[in-house]
C-alpha cells in the first residue's frame, strides 16, 4: 500500500453534463491522474445513445471500494458541466458535497419546442447552494475562450477541480495524465484551459 493509499479513505466524484461536452474525457483524466499518484481508482460511464445530446453521467471513485457507481447521497464532489444538470444531480449530494458547476446553459429541445421552460440559472444554482456545503460557479465558455477554444470547457472544469486540492493528486501527476491521454493536436489549448481553471480553483 502506498503512502497516499494509507492516509486516504475514499472520495467519490460524480460527473454530469450533456453529450458532446467531453465529460467522459474529463472523467478519464481524473482517473489516470489518480493512478499516476498511486491511488486505487474505479470509474463508471455509459456509452451509446445517451452520448448523442442526452444527459451523460459518469463517476470516479478513488480509494479502496468495490462499487464504481455512486449512490444517492454519496457524492463528495459533483462536477456539473451544465447548470440544469447540476440541479438534476442534487440527489447525489450530501450536506458536505462540493459542487463545481458551469454557468453556461445547454438548452434542451423540450424547452426549445415550448414543452418545458428552462429555469433561471440563479434559481438552479441557488437550489444547489441551499443544500450543499459549497458551490463553485464557473463561466466555462468565457474561460475556455480566453484559453483558445470554447471546446476546451471540460479542461477548465477539470483545472478548477485540481486547483481546489480536494483530490490528493500533485500537479506533476495531473500534467502526466494530460500528456498521456490528450491527442497531440489539442494538447496546448487544453493545457492552457486546465491552467486557467487551476488558477481559479486555487484562488477560492
Amino acid at each position: 500500500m502506498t503512502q497516499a493509499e494509507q492516509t486516504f479513505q475514499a472520495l467519490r466524484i460524480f460527473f454530469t453534463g450533456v453529450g458532446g461536452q467531453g465529460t467522459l474525457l474529463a472523467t478519464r483524466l481524473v482517473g489516470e491522474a489518480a493512478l499516476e499518484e498511486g491511488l486505487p481508482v474505479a470509474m463508471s460511464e455509459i456509452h451509446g445513445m445517451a452520448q448523442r445530446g442526452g444527459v451523460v453521467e459518469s463517476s470516479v471513485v478513488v480509494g479502496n471500494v468495490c462499487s464504481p457507481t455512486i449512490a444517492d447521497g454519496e457524492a463528495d464532489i459533483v462536477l456539473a458541466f451544465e447548470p440544469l444538470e447540476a440541479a438534476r444531480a442534487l440527489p447525489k449530494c450530501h450536506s458536505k458535497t462540493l459542487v463545481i458547476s458551469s454557468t453556461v446553459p445547454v438548452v434542451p429541445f423540450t424547452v426549445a419546442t415550448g414543452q418545458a421552460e428552462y429555469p433561471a440559472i440563479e434559481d438552479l444554482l441557488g437550489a444547489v447552494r441551499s443544500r450543499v456545503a459549497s458551490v463553485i460557479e464557473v463561466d466555462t465558455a468565457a474561460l475556455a475562450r480566453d484559453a483558445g477554444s470554447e471546446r476546451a470547457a471540460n479542461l477548465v472544469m477539470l483545472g478548477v477541480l485540481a486547483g481546489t486540492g480536494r483530490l490528493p493528486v500533485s500537479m506533476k501527476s495531473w500534467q502526466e495524465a494530460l500528456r498521456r491521454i490528450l491527442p497531440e493536436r489539442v494538447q496546448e489549448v487544453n493545457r492552457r484551459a486546465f491552467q486557467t481553471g487551476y488558477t481559479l480553483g486555487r484562488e477560492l
Partner: protein
Amino acid sequence: MSDRKILLGNEAIAHGLLESGCTMATSYPGTPASEVLSTLVQLKNACGLSIHLEWSINEKVAYEVALANSYMGRRSAVVMKQVGLNVATDPLMSSAYTGVRGGFVVVSADDPGPHSSQTEQDSRFTAMMAKIPVLDPASPREIRELVRVAFDLSEQHEIPVMLRPTTRVCHARQDMEVFPFADRKLFPLFEKNPARWAATPKFRLVLHRQLNEKLSRIEQDSTLAPRLVNDAPLRTGNPSRSRGDKTCVVSSGVALSHIKELMIELGLWDRVPLFQVMMPFPLSRSFIETTLSNYDRILVIEETYPVIELQLRLQAKVFGRLTGTVPSAGELLPEGIEDILRGFFLLPESDRSAPPDIPGRRPTLCAGCPHRAAFFAIKKAFPKGIYPGDIGCYTLGLNLGAVDTVLCMGASISHAAGFYHAFKASREDFPPICATIGDSTFFHSGVTALMNAVVQGARFVLVILDNGTTAMTGHQPTPARGRNLDGEAVPSLSIEEIVKACGVRSVVEADPYDTERLLQTLREAGDHARSADGGISVVISRRPCLMDRNRAGSWPKFEIRVNEKCRGCDFCIKQFECPALQAQGEKEPVRIDRNLCSGCGVCVSVCPHGALEAALSG
C-alpha cells in the same frame, strides 16, 4: 513482469483474451460490447500478434467463423451484445451439442436499464437454454481473470462457455495489473469426425447425452462453486440475527459490488452471510442443497432475470424477483438495492430526497448529421406516410416524427412489406410507406428482408442511410470499406449492386445535403412504387458521418446567418431539431451556435420564410 493500468471492462476482456492465447476473435459492434474488438485491434497492431480479428457482417456469422477456429484446437472468442446473441442463437444451440476443441468463449454483454438496447433480456437464460456454462463477473478486474477461467473450462470439457458482463462492468474502469500476452502459434489441425462435426439427428441424441454429462461434471467443480464473501467478518462479528431466523444473501455480477458496500453501511456485513455466484448456470447442486437446508430465508439479488433464483428449488425460502422482493424490471442501482436490503432486514427506510422537477433532456442527432437532412426530406415528400425505422443513430429520427416503428435489426424492411400487404389484402389504397435503414444494419439483416419483400411483390420506398460506417457504436467499418482489419485490400461490397441483385429495379443515389434534389428523388421513388410495373424503390442517401475521424472528408462549409425575416416561429427547431439552432423565446429570432454549427447549410432550405442565409465561409 507486469504493469499497472486503468482498463475499461471491455479492454480488460481484450487483455484477458490475449493473455490466454486467443488466436481468433470475431464480433459485430453493439453497445455495451463494442470496445472489446476495437481494443484487440489496437493491441494486435501495437504488439504484432498473430491473431485473426474481424468485424463480421452479423453475430451469427461471427459465431460460426470463430467456432471453426476452435474445431481446430485453437482458442477463439466471439463478442456481441445480448440482442446480438439472439441473432447467433442458431449456431449457439447447435454448437453446445457438437462441443468445441480449442477453448471457445462467447462474450454476450447485457444491458440492464436498458441504456442502449431494445430489451433487458438476460443472456444467462440463453446459456441455460443452450445448456452451456455461464460466468457472471462483478468488476473489470474480475472479468479479466474470468476470461482465463472460461478458456480453461471450455477446453477441459469441450463446451462453449459464456461470459456475461453487464453495462456497468463493460463500461466501468478499474486499475489492475496487466500481464504479457501469450502469442500461441498453434498449428490449425482439423481432425475429421462426421459423427460430431456433421452429426445427423441420430448422432445428435448421443451428443445431447454427452452434453448433459459435461454439465454434470461442471456443476460439481468446486472451484466454480459459489463462495462466501464475508467469511472473516462473520467469524469476528456479532452472530445475533435481526429476527432470530437464519438468513443469507446470494448475488452475482455488478450487484454484488454494490451489496458489499451497502451491507457494511447498514451493519449487516458481520452478521449476514453473502454468497457470490461466479457461475449462475449450472448452479452447484451442493450449494443449492446446503443453502436450502442451512437458511430459512434466502435473498437473491441478480441482474436481470431470476436465473439463480429459479434454480434454488424451494420457493418458500427464496426471496427475489419472483416474490416481488426485487423489482422485476430495471437496472439494480445502489439506491434500489439499499431499499431491498432495508425492506428485507426490517431496517428503517432511508430518507432520500426526491429528484428536482426540471426539464428532461433527450438524445438527438448531431449538428450537421446527414440523417437529419434525409428525415426532413422524407417527411416533406410523404407527409401522410408510415415510416418503419431501424436500429442505429437514425432511430433518433423518431424525435423528428420520421420513425414510427423500431423492433430489431432489419425489421424496417419486413415491416414496410407487412404494412403494404395488409392494405393490399384489404383491397384498400395504401398510404406512402417509407422505410429507413442504415448501411451497416442493411448488411447485417436487411438483405434477406429485401429479397423477401421483392419476391412477395411489396411496394414501398426504402431509404438506405449510407454514412459509410457503424456510427452509433464508435465507427466500426462496414463491408463496403474495402480493407480488412490488417489494412489489406479486400473486395468492397456495393449497396447498389446488392440492391439490384435482390431484384429491385429502381435504385437511385442522392446527397442528403441537397434537400431539393433529394426531395425530387423521393417523390419519383414514391411514384415508381405505385406505377404499373413498380415495386420497391430504393433511395441511397449517401454522406459520410461527420464524427467519423477515419473519413475526415471536407465539404464546402457555409456560414449561416439569421436575417430580419426570422419572426421566431421556431419551425426549424420543431421540424429539424438541429442542436446548433437555438430558440431565444417567443417571437425572438433563432440564434446559431457557432461552436455546434457544422456549416452543412441544410437549414437554409428548411426555413419556409427564407430567414436563414448561407455564405461560403473561407
